[in-house]
């Protein structure tokens, strides 16, 4: 197996995988699916311990069989995934088709899982993919998702990462958007003992667009890392990114976001905002926003803030008779609103709202 990356690699300076290295993962017998899996009235595809569960899944004409994986990048986790991948979702939406909403459920209760998902949209096709990731017990989930969007295609990709609090979740998501295509994405990071979501989005055709948002809600001694690289490889592309982190107890949040602008990518419009709220003295946030720009006619900016909840705002709400805990909950909900912007599907939106509510009350 390819070795796990270490902190001596710049891309991994804030996330230490030694706890994962020290583990061994026994194959677990597939547990019966929990009955609280979300149902928003759309076709669903279910993976249990990294394997497709046909019985629990809807039949979908766009879903295809799994083909073997060849990995061309040098990303250590994608290489490990390629060495072990045995299953995964393959979705191909033909040109011009609106495939509606698809729910992808990944459930795990043991073992080391390396699913490889592939999603491709033909010219002008559209799809909303809602991923719900859950589990129980100790396991390692190392999914790689490869997304290809042809000209004018539009994928809305929402992920609710709510793994078991004892699990390791290291996801790699790569998307390439051709001219006029759009990749709209939102990830909620709430579960896992240690997690990283690593996005690589390439805008390869003129006027391609991406929205790459995330909200990290972490407590206990959770470690959550959201890493993204948005590469502008063609002129007139735009990228928008809002990443919000709320950290309580001794949680540690990481955001590393790089915007790269190639020489040819004139008229690039890139924006990135990363904000974190530290709710307790032991919480920690590390942010590394990066701009790497080789074209001159561009408009790129990033911003980052780290701080506590504004006590004046809390006071304002309390002076209007709102109990302290409710006041704080309201402010945190408001803080997260902007990140949820790309989630336009009402069912998906409600699902995230409910998950945030559960997180806050259970905190």
């Amino acid at each position: 197996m390819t070795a796990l990356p270490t902190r001596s690699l710049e891309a991994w300076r804030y996330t230490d995988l030694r706890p994962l290295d020290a583990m061994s993962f026994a194959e677990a017998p597939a547990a019966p699916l929990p009955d609280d899996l979300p149902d928003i009235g759309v076709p669903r595809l279910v993976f249990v311990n990294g394997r497709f569960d046909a019985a629990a899944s809807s039949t979908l004409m766009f879903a295809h069989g799994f083909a073997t994986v060849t990995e061309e990048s040098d990303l250590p986790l994608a290489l490990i995934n390629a060495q072990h991948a045995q299953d995964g979702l393959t979705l191909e939406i033909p040109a011009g088709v609106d495939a509606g909403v698809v729910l992808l459920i990944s459930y795990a209760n043991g073992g080391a899982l390396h699913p490889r998902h592939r999603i491709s949209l033909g010219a002008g096709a559209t799809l909303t993919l809602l991923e719900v990731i859950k589990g129980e017990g100790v396991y390692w989930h190392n999914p790689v998702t490869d997304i290809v969007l042809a000209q004018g295609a539009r994928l809305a990709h929402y992920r609710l990462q709510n793994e078991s609090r004892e699990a390791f979740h290291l996801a790699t998501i790569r998307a390439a958007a051709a001219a006029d295509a759009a990749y709209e994405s939102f990830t909620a990071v709430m579960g896992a003992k240690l997690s990283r979501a690593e996005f690589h989005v390439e805008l390869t055709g003129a006027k391609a667009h991406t929205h790459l948002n995330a909200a990290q809600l972490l407590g206990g001694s959770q470690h959550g890392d959201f890493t993204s690289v948005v590469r502008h490889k063609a002129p007139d592309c735009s990228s928008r990114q809002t990443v919000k982190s709320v950290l309580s107890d001794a949680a540690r949040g990481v955001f590393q976001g790089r915007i790269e602008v190639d020489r040819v990518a004139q008229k690039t419009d890139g924006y990135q905002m990363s904000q974190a709220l530290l709710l307790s003295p032991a919480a920690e946030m590390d942010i590394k926003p990066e701009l790497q720009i080789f074209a001159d006619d561009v408009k790129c900016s990033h911003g980052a803030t780290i701080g506590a909840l504004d006590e004046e705002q809390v006071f304002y709400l309390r002076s209007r008779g709102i109990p302290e805990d409710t006041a704080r909950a309201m402010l945190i909900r408001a803080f997260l609103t902007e990140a949820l912007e790309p989630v336009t599907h009402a069912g998906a939106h409600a699902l995230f709202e409910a998950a945030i509510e559960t997180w806050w009350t259970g905190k």
Partner: protein
Amino acid sequence: MSATVETRDTVEALSVEKYKYGFTTEIAMEEFPKGLNEEIVRLISAKKGEPDWLLAWRLKAFALWQKLEEPHWARVEHPPIAYDELYYYAAPAAPAPKSLDEVDPALLNMYEKLGIPLNERAALAGVAVDAVFDSVSVATTFRETLAKSGVIFCPISEAVREHPELVRKYLGSVVPYGDNYFAALNSAVFSDGSFVYIPKGVRCPMELSTYFRINARNTGQFERTLIIAEEGASVSYLEGCTAPMRDENQLHAAVVELVAMDDAKIKYSTVQNWYPGDAQGKGGIYNFVTKRGACRGRNSKISWTQVETGSAITWKYPSCILQGDGSVGEFYSVAMTHNHQQADTGTKMIHIGKNTTSTIISKGISAGHSNNTYRGLVKIMPNASGARNYTQCDSLLIGDQCGAHTVPYIESRNASAKVEHEATTSKIAEDQLFYCRSRGLSEEDAVGLIVNGFCKDVLKELPMEFAVEAQKLLAVSLEGSVG
């Protein structure tokens, strides 16, 4: 006439002194072959009549340096540096030109544009001593005034002899000899530099500057500067000059250490315009510098201001360790790169004490084929309650062959701290240019004007006369970048 006599005497005295320290004498050059080994380190130390503890310190640094590897994380590219091909003492400058006629006309042209007085131009171009007369007499007058208020301002080699207890106490206390590759190299072979000590409660009566100190001009590649401000003291120090030095040396690895005690203030300004290499990127200085200030005392303040327009490669991160409660760190920077220059510069603000605040304003301008990177760290330690940081990094691109990069690291481990960072990258807006052009400004003047506006937040932090020169310098450095 008596003034002239006095001046000549002073110069003679200084010249003797110069010889004693072996700055540029032929003899020194013969005695010190190129290359670096323990013998050279011992020779440097012996030549300066250093005490054993300092030699031991140098040797420790040298031993460590041999084991270290050159850092490669910065966004700069250069062929491997042949450390054995360098001279570590008495920099082997090309024979000094005898008069201004022998100096490169391009250099003279630049002095003209910067408005540098004629007699100073010769000094800057490296013409032998005579033109420095004025500066020398100025230097000595200054030293008398300073001595009256108890301020020590002298070469660090002199300080080692005259004030060993101070040097021993503070040298390496902010930048330890093993801090990084270039700091270790500097610790082993540093030739000279400035030493400033401001006693308790003293406000230094004038701006201190290496510009006026003849013996600081030829200190060679490895300067070591140490500034200590005792409780309640304050000082403003300016390093460098606004005109390019005629300098063929390839590597400059300096170390600057600042120490501020309770309520002390140190303001350190740099205008760096070393030789940047020609338009094809040949030659030029590698400027690998470690600068760090320690705010040890309560409510102390260290402020770095830098205007970086020179050097083929700049690798420099003036930093503040905010240890004392309520201490303040500031970093104001303009970094301009043109042709094939590379700059990787920024700062580190380490918040340790309570209610510490830091401000970072960085303006990067890239033109030609250059690459300009801001790299910085803001770190809030768990005990730094109430800490506050504000960072603004803006980049301006002129031309489509250059690169501008921003790599900030922000680490907060205290919930009551507030950290804010913003960065933008853009080019000069067409409408701004058009506006200026329609008022009759040439394109070059318009760009110069806009760039100066872009840098205003930083330039206003410079001592006034240098701010004026820095503005001109930016315009000169930009020449040929438009049209």
